[in-house]
């Protein structure tokens, strides 16, 4: 079967670094959106990525509306919606339970991950929808599935929305795991302290038709570590496997990758293994950075949010610098301290999750 090509034709996002335009300004200026906060854990400081714009679900609709406006489509009635989210509506359930110590007034439909797609279906009336929840690879897997559905001609338009709100479960849960930093995170830094949990929304429109503004989603692949529920395989087998297969799916060679947008959470385990994976698979040493130093880790939204950054990096032909880095732990990876203007053909974007769930995407400049 001849694979149809897949193009990213419109997108918008919201994170603690602002909308997509503000995010890219912050990325290139190395200006973190993280704040040090005690509202979730009064006895512990934590670096968190928090919106300044109020209600999460109103922001979800607004971000999606912005993509519709940019898309040239009249509506989303012929578009498949694929949502990626790890927590869905658990924040609302928490608030009810903390107040009432009872489940009685929790609406199961507003608790589940599918509350995101229900909200967007109510606002836009998509042709169909589905929701993916694989923790921190949720919207990356949504993009992979969207690419495949267009590849085979099942859909012409797929809107992928990654969305995760902050909640007590994730903030306190990561604290319990001992991986939360009480400062702004410092991905790939020697002696780094951990990650920053953040909220984020990103909507990415995939289509089978090319425009002058398109970036191509050329390849994607997933893998499982089969090693541990939260710790990555120290030999990086799963990470290398998904990156390699995504590059193969794109029909290119590892040496064609010009920039890696790393998963780069800032946890000791993730960054050590990811640096090993990249230096092993990509010995030509392309520039790599983690933009989570700017946005924090937006969990299930991060794949779509970083897809937006990958597309902007390609359009601007300007590599995102590694913010908050003073001394790299692994000197075999190329972490630029300032933005780099260079020819960028292909960008690899990595996402790794609990359960050893790994997914990589390859974006390409138009030929």
């Amino acid at each position, binding site marked *: 079967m001849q694979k149809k090509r897949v193009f990213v034709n419109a997108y918008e996002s919201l994170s603690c670094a602002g909308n997509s335009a503000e995010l890219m300004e912050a990325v290139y200026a190395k200006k973190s959106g993280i704040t040090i906060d005690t509202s979730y854990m009064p006895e512990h400081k934590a670096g968190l990525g928090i919106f300044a714009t109020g209600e999460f679900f109103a922001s979800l609709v607004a971000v999606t509306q912005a993509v519709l406006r940019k898309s040239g489509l009249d509506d989303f009635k012929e578009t498949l919606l694929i949502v990626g989210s790890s927590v869905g509506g658990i924040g609302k359930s928490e608030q009810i339970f903390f107040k009432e110590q009872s489940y009685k007034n929790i609406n199961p439909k507003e608790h589940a991950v599918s509350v995101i797609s229900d909200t967007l279906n109510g606002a836009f009336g998509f042709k169909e929808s589905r*929701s*993916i929840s694989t923790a921190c690879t949720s919207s990356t897997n949504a993009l992979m599935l969207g690419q495949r559905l267009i590849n085979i001609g099942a859909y012409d338009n797929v809107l992928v929305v990654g969305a995760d709100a902050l909640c007590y479960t994730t903030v306190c*849960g990561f604290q319990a795991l001992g991986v939360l930093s009480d400062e702004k995170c410092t991905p790939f830094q020697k002696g780094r302290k951990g990650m920053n949990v953040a909220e984020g929304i990103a909507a990415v429109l995939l289509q089978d038709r090319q425009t002058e503004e398109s970036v191509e989603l050329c390849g994607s692949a997933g893998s499982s570590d089969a090693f541990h529920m939260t710790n990555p395989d120290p030999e990086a087998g799963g990470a290398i496997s998904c990156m390699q297969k995504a590059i193969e799916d794109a029909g290119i060679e590892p040496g064609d990758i010009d920039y890696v947008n790393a998963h780069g959470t800032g946890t000791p385990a993730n960054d050590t293994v990811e640096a090993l994976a990249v230096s092993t698979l990509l010995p030509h040493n392309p520039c790599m950075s983690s933009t989570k130093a700017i946005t924090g880790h937006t969990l299930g939204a991060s794949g779509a949010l970083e897809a937006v950054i990958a597309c902007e990096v390609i359009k601007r032909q300007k590599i995102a610098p590694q913010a908050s880095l003073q001394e790299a732990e692994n000197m075999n990876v190329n972490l630029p301290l300032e933005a780099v203007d260079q020819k960028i053909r292909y960008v690899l974007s990595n996402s790794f999750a609990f*359960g050893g769930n790994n997914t990589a995407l390859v974006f390409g400049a138009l030929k």
Partner: protein
Amino acid sequence: MKMNFMIKAMAKVTAAESCENLDEKRIVPMMMLRRRLTRSARIMVYLADRCGFSEGPVVYGSAYGEMQATADIVGAIAAKEAISPTAFQNSVYNTAPSYFSLLHKNREEMITVSSGDATSANVLQTGALQALIKGREVLLVCSEAINIPNIDEVNSCTEYLESGVALTLVPTEAEANTEVPKKEHKGYAPSLWAMLDLLDACEGRSGCVVALEL
């Protein structure tokens, strides 16, 4: 777009409260791993075993995910107690297929769907897509495990607090030979109904070929 798929194996399990005799000691001989399994993971590895599947891509689905782990975490926060790291790592929706992956050293793609009442319908669509892309047999599992204290305060959708359904499928050039009528599966969570429809249609038959929407 519809394509044809052959159903190779099927299994289901259900209980009013808790599924017994899931054969965990044989299926999961490593005690440390067995002790960490959530109820959904126990159901999943049992159903996969019944389907004779250990290697290959997996699509798993659950509308409500890991309810016990979520309840444990929220309860601990409300009580100002320490959160169990195990509860947190077991709280993600992809916990069950991740344990399956660990158990069998399965390094393939594991996708988890959570689409409310449409979950198993979307598992079928996603599983069909994955089988087509990979050109090989894929395991599809959908389960709900909501047997937690005080669930009656909020449960109005199912009499069975634990249930699961599984099948494996492969793409085929053969013509579809089975219609899959939609039914109401009283007592089961609606999130399982589409896969239960398929199991009912194929029950007692071999070489069942169905046309699935991608």
